[in-house]
């Protein structure tokens, strides 16, 4: 791609030729426990592949540049903003989305009011689920700090932190 397309997010003035970008890349990866084989455009974002091509719209697009966390998935067991990941980079990886998290475990998040409009919530839950599965990180980080990559515009973070405390069974949410 080079510098020719490295312009502002509005990008109206590029001289980029599409000639070199006509090809697609065939990749395989594991998605929510199943093997997926798909040909992707080199510029295709993982978020778009999941939403528009693999019929998994649970991951949301909030900001499209890795600030809000609404599109959080895990890639090889680490949380990632899927809007920042070109799909071809997950070749051979294990990707998990909100659709893979068992609903039965989510009751505490419901009871504490961790959601309002709900657009941030899938990303919140993916991060929260990762924390629950890796609770040793709580020895060095507060829940609040670990949740700092997920923005909520409606009702903020107390319901989320309280839900996580109940869910994980860890009483130290790191309330300031």
């Amino acid at each position: 791609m080079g510098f020719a397309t490295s312009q502002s997010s509005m990008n109206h003035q590029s001289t980029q030729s599409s000639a070199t970008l006509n090809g697609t890349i065939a990749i395989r990866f594991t998605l929510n426990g199943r093997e997926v084989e798909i040909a992707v455009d080199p510029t295709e974002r993982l978020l778009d592949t999941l939403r528009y091509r693999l019929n998994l719209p649970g991951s949301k697009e909030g900001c499209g540049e890795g600030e809000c966390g609404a599109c959080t998935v895990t890639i090889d067991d680490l949380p990632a903003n899927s809007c920042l990941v070109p799909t071809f980079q997950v070749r051979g990886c294990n990707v998990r989305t909100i659709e893979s998290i068992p609903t039965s475990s989510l009751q505490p998040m419901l009871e504490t009011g961790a959601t309002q409009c709900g657009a941030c919530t899938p990303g919140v839950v993916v991060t929260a689920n990762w924390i629950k599965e890796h609770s040793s990180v709580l020895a060095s980080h507060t829940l609040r700090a670990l949740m700092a990559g997920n923005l909520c515009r409606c009702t903020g973070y107390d319901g989320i932190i309280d839900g996580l405390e109940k869910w994980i069974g860890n009483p130290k949410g790191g309330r300031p």
Partner: protein
Amino acid sequence: MIKTDVAPTLAGGPTLIPTDMPTTNRPMNMGQSMDDNTSRLDGVAKITGAAKYSSDMLLPNAVFARFVRCPFGAANLETVDDSAARKVPGVIDIEITPKACTYNGQPVGHVVAESPVAVNRALKALKLNWKKDSVKTSIRDTKQVGLLKGNAPDADVTIRAVYSTPVQTHSSLETHGGVVDHKGDKATVYASTQGTFSVRDGFGDALSLKGSDFEVVCEYVGGGFGSKLGGPGKELMLAAKLSQKLKRPAYVMCNRAEEHLDTGNRPSSVTSVWLSLKKDGSVVGGEVMTYGGVGVANGGGGCNVPSGRYTFANVNKSHEDVSFNAGGPRAFRAPGRPQGAFAEELMLDEAAAELGMDPLALKRKLAIDDVYREMLDQGAKLIGWGERKANGSQTSVMRTGFGVGIAGWGSASPGGNAEVVIHPDGSVESRTGTQDIGTGQRTTMGICTADAIGIPLSMVTVQIGRSSLPPGPGSGGSVTSPTTAPTMMNAATQARTKLFEVLARQGGDNAADFTVKDGVVLKRGEKFLSWKDACAKLPADGVMGSASTGDGGKGNSQGVQFVKVVVDCETGIIYPKHVIAIQSCGRVICRKTAESQIIGGVIQGLSYGMFENRILDRNVGAMVNPNLEWYKILGPCEMPHIEPVLWAHGQTGVKALGEPPTIPTAGALACAVFNAIGAPVRHLPLTPDKVLSALEGARS
């Protein structure tokens, strides 16, 4: 942890309020609502990602489109070369009209393609030749706003100051737009909207269909805060045009940059004021001149000061909206109020400092009624106002400050309709077309139905967010629940009466002999039938109650907020620690969703007070922070402990809750910072540079 042994006087409350209480256990609010324990009915769908928003309606064979927009504040699009863009694989059409633009983000055309990737690549491949023009980017580019002259002859103290607030964008997590699926003689519109019926009515002839031949659907909305009121908007109008032309579903959603630039905002404001007071704190004269920064709009920049919540004698007010090269405002949660409250609350604290008064005592004296005074007294105890030190008296690096502000909102119901159907299997269906923008409409409608009939909530299903359902109000001005709650309860009561009439006819009784309690039908006070067995006696299509309410039903709600902050005087960083948000809203339907609304209002107010600012490049008029990285909103680590207090003293009827909790927050925060550092910061947001320069000013 702050300990308090305050005994609340709220009816039904316990005697001890732990201030560090989790959201799920707010003993102060228990017993204050119709339903203390119910969680959102759509919570599971939201938490599991199963809830389908308009932006999730990815229909087979859909086309994707985005606007081509002006990258500068003022520029003439002179030539367009779309030859490379048209060669991008998957591009269907490009339509661009050269014209003169007057704000960053103004559409000049669109690209439509088979995939989002193709749309984005085609946008990048466009060669657009813009000739830039000079720009104005703020109120002060047009208006020289200085200190006002004048004072009341009998004044003991007169203060003069200029306050300003920035543009705040709504920043809903789901952006604007939707999907139109036009099938020739029918169409479905999936809209991200706060007004299902205003979208339906706003299409006019754009769909070439009668309103009865298309349906607007918005079962879930990812936030709106006022920006998604009104009609279909330019995004859905484009989708309507493309879907008809291409005979395929058309998907048009803004990206985050477009969202900041062209979907409305809270306008900026500048307020210049002089205020004369007597030694006892009474206001004897003053003048307030406000300016609203409305971008390319001609109006909508109102700045609500004086607010009418304090008694000010002989204070004249004038206002002027100022246009410049930027996207215009839209309604934003309590339009005009937070910017006015910021100036008003800080102005009063500055006056109190001049008078040597406690600002709480001054505000208590000037507040227009005793409800505010009671709320102020209660909140002062909860926040620990007694620990407040005199302005500027602290010398440590970390200084603590306390501030207070008050809020009010009147909501006039626009009227609405609802239906309740009782089916022979015992299930109950509530129907209203009104949408849920996150407020809890689905949940409150279920609670109202269950409560009115006398059955458990689990028997009720709620249908909302479709224009084929009974028309309801737009979610704006905090009118939704005040309108839909009594309407739904009426409909439910009517359906229940019809059930009783069926039972009475079959048994030779009077309908008035029956009632329902806890899911059991009673006849003359004795158990008659289980709910299910009673409903089994209904005809196959069940019975339906329908109700409508007309205009009116205006009811005021009031609130006060106390903010405690710690300011780091070496870095200028503000750390809000604790917020008490006391709020009346009449009869509370659902405790959890009501608390959620109050906390959300406080968060948006703090975020407005500390971070949010649409920054325009003053040379070319382009927004330099059209994202969520440099347009910062409050995150989990900046959040203080927020305690919503539901004030239900003698309240009847359902009243406004959405708007008022965001009105006083930024003002109270600014007062707390003033208290901590001894110098006022008169311009939002309260960023470290401004805090440090205020401190420097105080030292010199």
